[in-house]
C-alpha cells in the first residue's frame, strides 16, 4: 500500500519535463478533438496521474482533469485538509474535493461551452463512474480514449531511468538479502520493508511463496518515485535440481531481450531449460513494462503479442505452478537497449545475465 515517501524534487525530474508530459497529452487531445480528458486512478493503481503530476493517491480514488488548453485539476474525495500537502508534493495547483465525482466534474466544467470529454483508458474505469460522469454532463459528448498516458510512459526519459537505476539497486539488494538461507517468510518480508522503504520507496509489495519441496521464492515489487521495479529470487535451494533450471530459463529469456521481442520469443528462449522442471509443472515466461507493474500488467490487452520497445524498462519473470501445489518465480528488471538487456536489479556483487 502507498505509505512510503512522496517527494517532488526538480533535481530529479526538472520542471520542464513535467510540462512536456502535460503538453504531450494536450497535443493528443487536440488531435483527437477532445476538449477535456479525465484520467482515473485509485490507491492501488494511479500511476498515470503520478506521471503527469507526481500526485500520490494514498487512499480512495481520484480523477485528474486535463483541459486541452489549460492546466490540470485534481478531483478527489479526500478532504481539503490534505490539499496543502498535495500541492507541496505535486505540480498541480488546483485541487477540488467533494463527495461525488459527478458533482465535481459538473462544477469543473460549469460555464464552459459543451464539447467532448474523453475518458483515458475507459475500459479500466468503473462502469458506474462512467455512467455517473456522463449523466452529470448533459450536452457534453463523452468518449472513450485509449491509454494515452500509458503509451507515453512505455519508454522512460533520462531522468526516469536515473531514478530506476537507483531504485533497481535497492530492490536487487533487498531481494538478495531476503533470500538468505534459513529465514522464515515473515523475516524475509521484514528485510525487504526495512531496506526498500528505508531507502525512500513509495510502495513495496513482498510475496513469499513456496514450492512443494520447501524451496522459497521472494518476489519484491517496489515503486521508487513514479517508477516500478521487480526482482524475484529463490531461497533455500539446496537439493532440488529444478531451481537451477528456473534460473537458467530466466537467464536465457534475459539474453533474448531486445527491441521488437515479444513474450513468445522469451518463451522460446527459456523453453529448453523449462523442460527440466518437474513433470506436470505449468511454467511461463513473461515481461511487464515497469509502467504496468502496479497491476503486474494484468490489464494489458493481448500482452503476449506486444513487442518490447528500445528504451523501455521491463520486468522479465519466469514462474511455475507445480502439479503438487506450490509456486515459485524468478525475475529481474532490465533496460531494453539496442543490443540486449541491461539488468537494473542486480545487487552489488551479484552475478546475473
Amino acid at each position, binding site marked *: 500500500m502507498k505509505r*512510503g515517501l*512522496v517527494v517532488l524534487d526538480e533535481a530529479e525530474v526538472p520542471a520542464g519535463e513535467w510540462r512536456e508530459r502535460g503538453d504531450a497529452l494536450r497535443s493528443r487531445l487536440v488531435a483527437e478533438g477532445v476538449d477535456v480528458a479525465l484520467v482515473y486512478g485509485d490507491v492501488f493503481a494511479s500511476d498515470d496521474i503520478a506521471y503527469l503530476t507526481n500526485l500520490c493517491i*494514498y487512499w480512495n480514488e481520484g480523477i485528474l482533469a486535463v483541459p486541452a488548453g489549460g492546466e490540470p485539476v485534481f478531483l478527489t474525495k479526500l478532504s481539503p485538509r490534505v490539499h496543502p500537502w498535495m500541492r507541496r508534493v505535486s505540480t498541480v495547483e488546483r485541487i477540488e474535493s467533494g463527495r461525488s465525482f459527478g458533482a465535481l466534474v459538473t462544477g469543473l466544467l460549469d460555464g464552459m461551452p459543451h464539447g467532448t470529454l474523453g475518458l483515458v483508458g475507459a475500459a479500466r474505469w*468503473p462502469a458506474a463512474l462512467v455512467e455517473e460522469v456522463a449523466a452529470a454532463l448533459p450536452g457534453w459528448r463523452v468518449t472513450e480514449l485509449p491509454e494515452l498516458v500509458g503509451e507515453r510512459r512505455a519508454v522512460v526519459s533520462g531522468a526516469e531511468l536515473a531514478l530506476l537505476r537507483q531504485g533497481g539497486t535497492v530492490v536487487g539488494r533487498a531481494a538478495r538479502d531476503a533470500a538468505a538461507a534459513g529465514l522464515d517468510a515473515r523475516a524475509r*518480508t*521484514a528485510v525487504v520493508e526495512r531496506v526498500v522503504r528505508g531507502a525512500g520507496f513509495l510502495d513495496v509489495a513482498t*510475496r513469499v511463496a513456496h514450492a512443494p519441496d520447501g524451496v522459497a521464492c521472494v518476489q519484491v515489487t517496489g515503486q521508487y518515485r513514479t517508477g516500478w521495479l521487480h526482482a524475484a529470487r529463490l531461497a533455500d535451494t539446496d537439493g532440488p535440481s529444478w531451481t537451477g533450471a528456473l534460473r537458467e530459463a530466466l537467464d536465457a529469456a534475459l539474453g533474448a531481450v531486445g527491441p521488437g521481442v515479444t513474450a513468445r520469443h522469451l518463451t522460446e528462449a527459456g523453453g529448453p531449460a523449462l523442460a527440466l522442471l518437474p513433470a506436470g509443472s505449468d511454467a511461463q515466461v513473461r515481461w511487464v513494462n515497469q509502467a504496468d507493474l502496479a497491476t503486474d500488467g494484468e490489464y494489458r490487452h493481448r500482452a503476449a503479442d506486444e513487442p518490447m520497445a528500445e528504451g523501455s524498462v521491463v520486468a522479465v519473470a519466469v514462474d511455475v505452478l507445480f502439479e503438487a501445489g506450490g509456486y515459485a518465480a524468478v525475475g529481474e528488471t532490465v533496460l531494453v537497449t539496442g543490443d540486449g538487456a541491461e539488468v537494473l536489479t542486480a545487487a552489488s556483487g551479484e552475478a546475473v545475465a
Partner: protein
Amino acid sequence: MTTASDTESAATVAPPGGPDADGAERDLRHRKVRAAMAAEGLDAVIAYGPGWRRENVRYFTDARITGSSSMVLFPASGEVSAFSTRRGDLPELAGTGWVDHAGVLDVWDPEPLIGRLRDLRPRRIGVAHLELLPAMLDAALRRAVPGAEIVSATRLLDGVRLVKSDWELARMRRSAAVCAAGWEAFVDVLEPGLPEFRIVAEVEARIKELGAEDNFMLIASGKDEVRGMTAPTPRVLEAGDMVRTELTPQMDGYWLQICRSAVVGRPDEGQRRSFALFDEAVAAGIASVRPGVTAHDVAKAQNDVFRAYGYGEYCTSRYTRVRGHGHGLHLDETPIIEGNETVLPENAVFIIHPNTYTPLAGYHVLGDPVRVTADGCEVLVATERKLFHSEKGAAA
C-alpha cells in the same frame, strides 16, 4: 468495559482455527449470505475485488489474494468459484479449501467466470462493489446474462460482515497484538534527526516480522502548526515535536487500528492539555457503547466533550473527517460520524478516534479499537492511553 491483556504474545502464535473451525466458519458465512440473498431475491452474488477493496473476496475465500482484480461467484445453491488475475494466487485459493473451483481471471476474456454464471441462468444478480467494477468486466457480465437484473450487493455484504464471529474475533485479537507492537516500535525509534519515512520503514519491518500482511499508516510530525496526517515526508524530527500516527496492520485478513501521539522529548503544557481533552473524548466514546448504539451516538459522545470545552468547531469537516470507523476485512468500514444512524450490534468492531486539529497542540491522534459486548465494550488493544514521549528527544 474489559481490557485486553497479554496480547503481545498472541501475535506470535498460529492463527486460531483448524480444519473443523475453518469449515464451520465458512458454512456460517454461507448461511448468512444466503439468508440475505433470499431476502433480496438474489440468485447469485458476485464479489468483485479491485486491488484496494478485496474484503468480500476474502470473506468467501479466506485467501490472501494479490491480483489486481479478483471475483467470487457465489450462487444461491451449488459450487463456489473464485478467480484472480494473478496465477500465483491459485495455490492459496486452492489451499484454504473454501471454494470449489479456482481459476485465472483474464479481464479481457473472463469466459471461465461468465460461463459458470451463464450456466446458473440467474434472473437477479447482486454484485458486491458493482460501483468499482471496471467497464470491461461489467460489459462481459451483462453480455453473459442479457436478461438478468444486475444490482449492487455492496451493502448486503457490508451488513453480513458487520457482526464478527468468535472465529473472526480471535483473528482480530492477533491484529490487536500487532497494533501494540507496531506502536512500541514507533516510539522506540523516535529521535531528533530521524526522517518520517524511516519511522515508517522501521514500523513496517517490525509488524511484518510479526506476520502482518499489510498496513495502512498515516503520519505527521511537528508542533501546533500540524493540521492533518499524510503519507510520510522527508521531514526530520526535532526536539519538542509531537509525532502522530494511525497504524492499521492487517493480520490473517483482518485490519485493526491504533491511534496514538508521542512527543520527541518532554511534552509541553499545550501537548498535555491536548492529550487530556482527547483522552476524555475517547473515554466518552467508549462509555457510550452498548448493543444497539448508533454510529451517530458514539460520534456525538466524543464531539460533546470538545463542545463542552469550547472546541466544537474543531469537530467539523474543516478540521477532521470521522470520529472512528468500523474494522474487519476492510479497514474503513461504517464511519463513526454524526448523522450515520447505522446500528452497532454486539460483536461489531470499530475504532473510536476523535482525531482532529485544535490550537492546543495541533492535530492530535488518539484512539482505541473496541468490540461491542452485551453490556458495553471491550477495548481490544492493551497499549496504555497516554501521551507517550521519547527520552532521546529529552536529551537533545
